[in-house]
């Protein structure tokens, strides 16, 4: 992994959006009822952008993140992650995409409890078939960047909440991953540790990566370039661009 604030190299051509949602709708069947939890929404995320999404519980924020992270497919509309159309990609292709483009950070850390900090960070590379030594080196560098090199061999239950979240951030950006999807990453942390996590995310975006942050906390949303409000499955306004509130 590069340093979080180190610039990510792009091809000479203008960078394509890392994430693009066009008229995306997601519906679930609940018994006999069809429940629309999201959409239609449009959203574009360019490299280097940091976007925060706010909204009440049940507004569809987590569903939006799941779609952005290739964990789910839309009922209608199209989702492009790093140029790949999710609707046209197989399960294996989406798994490959998850290994290489988006990284997740969750509120409750979601580290694999049986793996050490180093092994957790190395996981996406290992799943991608990278050589052990190479993956180890890259994972160690990622841990160094979040200041946890000394705790590489510790299992998650021996780490504090803030340390676990930093491991999760290192894992989210290890290897070629350029898109970070964070679902309330500071929800289980104290305010100081939460601020430190936000600093890491900001530094990563300043280095050319992109982040989509779901949060309830306006102070954390203030770190983003754009803040979007999601209400009842739709952005508060016709489209993402018109709902944005520039804070920086």
């Amino acid at each position: 992994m590069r340093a979080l604030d180190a610039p990510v190299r792009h091809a000479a051509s203008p960078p394509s959006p890392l994430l693009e949602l066009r008229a995306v709708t997601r519906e679930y069947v609940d018994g006999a009822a069809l429940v629309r939890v999201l959409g239609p929404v449009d959203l574009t995320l360019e490299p280097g952008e940091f976007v925060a999404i706010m909204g009440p519980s049940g507004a569809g924020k987590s569903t939006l993140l799941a779609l952005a992270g290739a964990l789910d497919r839309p009922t209608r509309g199209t989702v492009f992650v790093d140029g790949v159309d999710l609707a046209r990609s197989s399960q294996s292709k989406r798994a490959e995409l998850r290994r290489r483009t988006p990284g997740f950070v969750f509120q409750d850390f979601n580290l694999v409890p049986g793996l050490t900090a180093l092994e957790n960070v190395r996981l996406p590379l290992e799943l991608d078939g990278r050589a052990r030594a190479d993956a180890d080196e890259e994972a160690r560098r990622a841990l160094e960047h979040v200041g946890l090199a000394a705790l590489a061999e510790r299992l998650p239950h021996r780490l504090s909440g803030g340390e676990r979240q930093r491991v999760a951030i290192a894992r989210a950006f290890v290897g070629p991953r350029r898109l970070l999807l964070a679902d309330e990453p500071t929800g289980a942390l104290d305010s100081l540790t939460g601020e430190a996590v936000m600093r890491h995310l900001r530094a990563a975006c300043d280095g050319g990566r992109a982040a989509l942050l779901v949060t309830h906390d306006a102070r954390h949303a203030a770190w983003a370039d754009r803040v979007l409000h999601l209400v009842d499955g739709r952005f508060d306004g016709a489209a993402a661009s018109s709902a944005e509130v520039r804070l920086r």
Partner: protein
Amino acid sequence: MSALAALLRVERRHAALAPWRTALFGALVAAPAATWVAATALQRTLAPTSEGGAFEAVAAQVVGGFGFAVAALVIGAAAAVGHERRGHELAQLLACGARRRTIAAALVLSTAVVALAASLVGVLFGASAAALLLPLYDAWTGGDHALELVPSAFVSAPTLGVLVAVGAAAPSIHRATRPTKAPPGPALERRERRARIAAAVLACVAGFALVALARPASRASAVWTLGSGSLLGLVGTAGLAGPLMRCLARAVGRAPLAARLAARDAARAPGRSSAAALAILAGLAGMTLIGSLASAVERVARANGDAPRGMEPLLVLAFVGASLAGLLVVAAATALNAVEGRRDTWLLAVHGAHPRTVLAVHGARAAHLALVGGVLSVPAGLLPALGLVRLAEVPLTFAVPWRELSLALVVLPALAFGLGAALGLAIEGSHTLGAARRPDVAAPSNPNSHR
């Protein structure tokens, strides 16, 4: 009294909300009760016409007692997991003003009631099984016997069933209702762990010494010596499940991801994995015991120049029953493990694991537990077999039952791998792998969450 009644109502609701769990617990008590009643009835019926009547009597009692010991192990492990999972609910009851002793009393009483009901069902089932098996046996051997049930077994089986269930569940009930203590700290934890390993090894050695060295003078002393030796060996072997899993977890540093996760998960959640491994140990130990006896009988038949008749009919039935029980236990433990470990596989899918990798993790977990259970079942099953062979009036030679050992150590882990992968496929969904559902709904609860 009213507090106890209220808590018993809570227990009744709890049992009604998870009927499969209550049924599983009941089956664990009913099975040895049924074995006890059937074994004593068949022994009394067949003993007068058998050459080795006294041997069969001892064998029936040892096999029946072994069943209760195995049930105690599995119930203890299952109760530990169940009460651990109910920790939050029990804390709520305490927060509402219930006394620890009243909660413990309600848990013990509900356990006893279910165990009594299950034992009575087991008694009826055992008597019916004996009545069904005897004509089959007579048809096979050309004999003519009238079934003689043993009335005392109708009382002793439910009594033993209740005592075993309550006794096995008592430690976890005590742990679940005792005041919260500060964690012991790594040094004390290490010391406690070493003491537990030493106690387990000591129990194994004492068990082997009793069975291998003792020269019982009478049938009664033979039952006691062999029974207590086998029990000590079984308890000691079961006590080694945790240390064995910890050793394996340390040894898999450079193994493939699936094997590493399987070994580490098993060591990390000893309550859950030990319950599954002990259940497998129990099923396979019975199979090894009966297989050993059958091998000894076969060897004598061959030495006497008899035509190879295969196993004796009753042994065939017992072996098939024990093997089926072993397979069922592996399936049940695998299913439990697959459901419990769903969150980790969901996480792997989130980070881009190929669906095949996720299924391999499910399979490796099942195979790991089957292997641990299988390895431990070898001494646990061979020990009582060794004792029974030594005590037989007809001179029997102990023979290592290679067929059963290969089944326990190779075939069953391989089957468990396939079973685990298939269950993983069923649980995760062939297309969605769980990750494609809404993450806030699909993601199982995080055991390591700070919240």
